[in-house]
């Protein structure tokens, strides 16, 4: 039986192009192009690597505005089999709790799943909380921050990147995996698959399809609210120009202030 794989992806404003409105201090998304969140490209590639070796069926799930179908088609052009866009006015303004709930409700509706992939974090909200949230709603284990994932003898083996080393973890499906940004090189779309993707199309699911109350999702369902946005004040620094010939003076000054220590071995 084929492995049922779900990849959760999000369309985000291209971080290279994002501008911040100097007046409202909010993201000026109008100017930025929308792209597939980079870590999610790595998550999809990790799923496709499994599909290269074991018979698998990959479903893309994304919550976002109608135009996000573009990002889903891109994933299908690379080898995903099915694409589902969760789009509804009611979903707007969600923090990580209702985002995870909405995605988990969609995955539940899909039926059987073995491995769920997510990116380590998104470039626009960068919490890394949505993946583990989905795993909790579904009651499954997770392996986060993976740099590589294998499927072997019915187990998923992930190498987690931690602050002090690499932890190798084995889990039996169903399991949720989050994938490190830049941990693999995402493949390109093929023309053939792209054409197929356009033919197959992206399915759109609304709140009604999920069967959960409107108060549970989007802004209404979010426990956290943003109270204010402030520009981060940078510490003012003098940028005093020093020429190479003045370096001797600089060194003396720093030594005098105790910034650099002139430990001299005493006899």
């Amino acid at each position: 039986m084929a492995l049922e794989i779900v990849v959760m992806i999000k369309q985000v404003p291209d971080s290279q192009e994002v501008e911040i409105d100097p007046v409202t201090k909010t993201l000026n998304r109008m100017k930025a192009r929308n792209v597939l969140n980079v870590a999610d490209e790595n998550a999809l590639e990790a799923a496709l690597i499994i599909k290269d070796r074991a018979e698998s069926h990959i479903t893309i799930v994304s919550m976002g505005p109608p135009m996000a179908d573009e990002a889903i088609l891109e994933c299908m052009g690379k080898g995903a089999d099915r694409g589902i866009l969760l789009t509804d006015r009611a979903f707007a303004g969600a923090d990580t709790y209702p985002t995870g709930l909405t995605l988990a409700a969609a995955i539940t509706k899909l039926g059987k799943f073995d491995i769920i992939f997510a990116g380590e974090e998104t470039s626009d909200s960068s919490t890394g909380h949505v993946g583990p949230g989905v795993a909790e709603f579904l009651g499954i284990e997770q392996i986060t921050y993976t740099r590589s994932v294998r499927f072997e003898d019915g187990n998923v083996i992930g190498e987690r990147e931690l602050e002090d080393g690499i932890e190798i973890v084995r889990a039996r499906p169903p399991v949720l995996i989050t994938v490190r940004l830049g941990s693999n090189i995402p493949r390109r779309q093929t023309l053939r698959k792209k054409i197929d993707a356009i033919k197959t199309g992206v399915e759109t699911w609304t709140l009604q399809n999920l069967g959960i109350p409107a108060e549970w999702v989007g802004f209404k369902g979010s426990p956290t609210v943003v109270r204010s946005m402030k520009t981060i004040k940078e510490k003012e620094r003098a940028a005093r120009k020093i020429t190479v010939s003045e370096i001797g003076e600089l060194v003396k000054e720093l030594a005098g202030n105790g910034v650099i220590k002139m430990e001299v071995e005493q006899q």
Partner: protein
Amino acid sequence: MTGLINAVPTDKPEEYRNVFVFLETRKGAIVKSSLEMIGIGKEIAEKVKEKLVCILVGNDLAPMAKEAGKYGCDKVLGAESPDLEDFKTMPYAHYAAQFISEEKPNIFLIAATHDGRDLASRIAVKSRTGVTADCTVIDIDPNERILLANRPVYGESTLAEILCKNHRPQMATARPGVFKVPDAQDGRNCEKDIRRVRVDPDLIRKEIIGFRPKVEFDITDADIVVSGGLGLGKKEGFQVLEELAKELGGVVGASRPAVDVGWIDRDHQVGQTGRVVRPKLYIAAGISGKAQHIVGMKQSDIIIAINSDPDAEIAKYSDYFINDDVYAAIPELIKEIRKLKGEKEVEIST
């Protein structure tokens, strides 16, 4: 398992008291970023005259509980079992959430390490509350006892203040390296409640089958960091930096591209996807000053930038700007430091 259910506003939020901090441990010791959480946790607990309670999940917790007490925690709540020796999300989240439902804390903090973030949102979902990720400024409204969780957004340009007014506990993860480790002191009072638990086998669904430690090296510990970027032009440039670092008693750091091209190990990377350092002195040699690098070093006390481009962005983040070639400036720095050391030596011997 939480099931598909919404976050629910807490009935009597005023009944929720005290600050919880989850402690991450490694080889029988509390990790540095969790000690930082004890520091900030204690600070906000004192503001509202409440207790700081630390949560430990693992095996043989007594030495770590003792350590937590030394750093200022008022009470330790622990779940101990050989099955909890390794970090496993489901049982760890289970015990943390159980402690929450028993003790009803007002605030719950976790360091935003990889394991910390792995756990945080699961604990939040289990408790049907919200969590703010990766905070760099944390405070409390002393009257309402509302957590003021601030996190940088939009490429670190803006600080968003996020509140979770109606749900308890109010949860946040906090960025490692931002908050201070408090002083340790013997003989502080700390109540300990460590329970031997029998872990439900259904919660054990993953297994740690290996660990490859990183070479023991942590640039965040150093007082002086000398970093190099692509402007060094070649791998050998790092040898020159190494020489300067040695002369200063510091360590070598790097920009991400310098790591990517293989001039130096990733352990040395400073920045958004590397480490956040705040040494007494930071020297940036051949680094342009892109936002992702700046976030990793802008809290340094003094910054010296060396860059041949007079308009390099790094200049505005520097206290001293040496607008010249790295290969002119670095050897001169080394020479002048040696010279000064030599003079001192003469002073002492005469």
